[in-house]
């Protein structure tokens, strides 16, 4: 990989190898602005089937915006994005719902309904397959309920299926959120700092689980992380973002802790 600079002096990544043909996510020269503030500049990258990509970079670098562009929660200002052969920016509302059904999203704060059971939260991952709204566990078809228990079992929480979600620990709640994503049968899972609210042991557990499930089911993971050691130990590829630009994109095996630390160091230097 060669790092050069843009005309405005910002670093630019040139990739030696061409993108694999079966890319599940493809960004080509994507810019994103909110009002007058440009938060992403000329982003190009691809992610292929089964890949686990760790997205690193300082806070405010644009990682969350990049993830939200993938599932169409934001639209790019310019450039093109293709996700599972669909352009989220050009989708109708219904088409976007269909695309999102195949793209799981895991949030830092879990995004669970605290006052209902873990099982019901997992079942919500299957709503895209149903037409009518649902309220309460028994309003879901039996086959889906059976599958939801299976998914909870895969994340080690089958015994807690009837427990109120807000009485589970942080790590358990994030596992419920992962099980909800599994219910989607997702081809891509986006995780926005999924372990930022967890203690170190729970963080390792959650990432190991995500990694294992990705290998078993073959889904692509794009996971933003701040913990350098976790990024190095769990991912196949590291993509570093700073000030809205990708400044490093290489296989994890070729990346050292210093490479990633330098991304944060340069950010704090430029902040000073």
């Amino acid at each position, binding site marked *: 990989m060669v790092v050069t600079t843009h005309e405005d002096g910002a670093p630019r990544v040139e990739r030696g190898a061409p993108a694999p043909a079966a890319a599940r996510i493809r960004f080509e020269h994507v810019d994103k602005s909110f009002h007058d503030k440009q938060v992403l500049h000329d982003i190009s990258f691809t992610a292929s089937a089964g890949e686990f990509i760790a997205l690193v970079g300082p806070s405010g670098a644009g990682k969350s915006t990049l993830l939200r562009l993938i599932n169409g929660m934001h639209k790019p200002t310019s450039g093109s994005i293709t996700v599972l052969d669909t352009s989220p920016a050009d989708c109708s509302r219904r088409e976007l719902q269909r695309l999102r*059904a195949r793209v799981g999203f895991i949030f830092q704060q*879990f995004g*669970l309904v*605290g006052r209902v059971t873990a099982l019901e939260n997992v079942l919500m991952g299957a709503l895209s397959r149903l037409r009518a709204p649902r309220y309460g566990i028994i309003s879901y078809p039996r086959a889906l309920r059976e599958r939801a228990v299976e998914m909870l079992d895969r994340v080690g929480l089958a015994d807690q299926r*009837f427990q109120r979600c807000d009485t589970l620990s942080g790590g358990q709640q994030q596992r419920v959120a992962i099980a909800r994503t599994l219910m989607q049968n997702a081809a891509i899972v986006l995780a926005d700092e999924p372990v930022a609210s967890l203690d170190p042991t729970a963080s390792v557990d959650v990432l190991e689980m995500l990694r294992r499930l990705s290998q078993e089911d073959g889904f692509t993971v794009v996971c933003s992380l701040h913990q350098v050691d976790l990024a190095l130990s769990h991912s196949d590829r590291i993509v570093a973002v700073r000030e809205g630009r990708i400044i490093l994109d290489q296989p994890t095996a070729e990346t050292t802790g210093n490479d990633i630390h330098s991304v944060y160091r340069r950010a704090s230097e430029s902040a000073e």
Partner: protein
Amino acid sequence: MTTSLTAEPLEAPPAPKRPRRISPVLLVCAVYIALTIYGCWWIGVSLEAVIAGAADIGRLVERMFPPTFGNPLEVARMLLETLLIAVAGTAIAAVLSVPLGAAASDRFTGPRVVQWLARAVIMVTRAIPSLVFALILVRVFGLGPTAGGLAIALHSVGMIGKMFADAFEEQDPLAADAVEAAGARRAQTFIATTLTRAMPRMAAIVLYRLDINVRASAVLGIVGAGGIGVALQTAIGTLNYRYAAGIIIVIVALLLVLEGVSVLVQRRLAEHAHEGDVAMLFSPGRNAWTPGWTRRRVIRAITVWGLIAVVAWSLWVIAPDPDRALRSLESTWRLLIGMFPPAFSPAVFAGLWESFLMAITATTFGVVIGLILAILSTDLVVRVPVVSTILRVVVVLVRGVPDLVWALLFVAALGLGPFPGFLALTISSTALAAKFFTDSLQNLDPLPMRALESAGAGRLQVFVAGVWPQFMPSFVGNGMFTSDLALRESAVLGVVGAGGIGFLLQESTRTLHYETTSAIVLGLLVIVLALEVGARWIRRAIL
């Protein structure tokens, strides 16, 4: 680094010149006092009138004793009908308020015009009292509980819709974002996340409204819209004051019992809102994916099905017969056509002005007397526990009697005109203001008061320096809310001859002059909304 405090010259920088502004509180007080002085002249309030009125009221009370209760079965039937009208109206309003509140909330992501329409419906239905709706609906559905139930539903939908919208906005949007990101439709996301989370809060709102609606349905009968009010109206109309007293006692007893039940259930619901102590919501069922039955689930299921049965029964009670329902379509059409264009006449303006003056004058008296009662009910200035207990009981009992019942009694004692209406409104405003003020005085931060006490300040000094500055925003806010409620009430007192626009409103519907009805409703809407905007401005200015 060291700092010298004495090295700097002690001259204070010149204070920036602030433009001279009239305090908004003083402005409001001045407006209220001016309107009250004018209102006293308009209504004919004077010390002599009050003394003479007291003697007349005394004679009426003598004629009411001993109260009689007539046929107990008949009274029970009417009480049940009153309750079921309130239940049906509240249930219809609650169901309609879910989509309405969702569309009106800030979180609504659909078309702007839908949100705008939902907010308009909420604003308009909140501003029009249920008795006004009842007057109009009696023309469409005829005398009986159908008009009553629907009138309650129409008025409640505004308030419940607004409170539901607030409840939906309070919910953390992350769960909804997460489920939407999983490809769920808008309605699925809303029901699975926002509605599910808001459920305990919604139950509390509906219960609170049911309490208010029973109070309203007790007097709907006065305009022929079903319930026990019919009997009250008949008893007073036939000068059977002992039976009227019996019915009033039954109504007050029912309302007090319901208020007690409502407070208890709301307390339990509030506890349930934080039911984190119960971790397992279901026991394991006959297989892994079916929830089993726990005691909690059994109780919940019985409650839910019981409620559904009661609501179904209430809907059956207020349902019009098929023939009447068919004819009501035609009547509704005639009513709507007849309402345009609204006919604003001098009589409409005079009636609205009288209602407005009655409300403002009664509020001024009510707020001042209510403040004195509240101070005496708490131990801030005077500490005589017996007095405060007696005052609280009196306030609860007085609040138990609906305004229209007070007005009926005063009209019977003093004759027609705005004076009995003013007295009824003053009594209800006093009781309401006393309750609001007592609650907020009790919830003040005690630390500043203790600090002043420990510095040797007297009770009056503590009140002026430690209590009043904290209490003032709530005094103004609740005072304006009291006038808001008094205005809605004063608009309907005329149906029993107690002054204001109510008389003309009732006459216009009786004589099928719907163009006058619509003018009155529009005028009322403008005054209520203007008062609400004013109250919001004041609240923003003083907070």
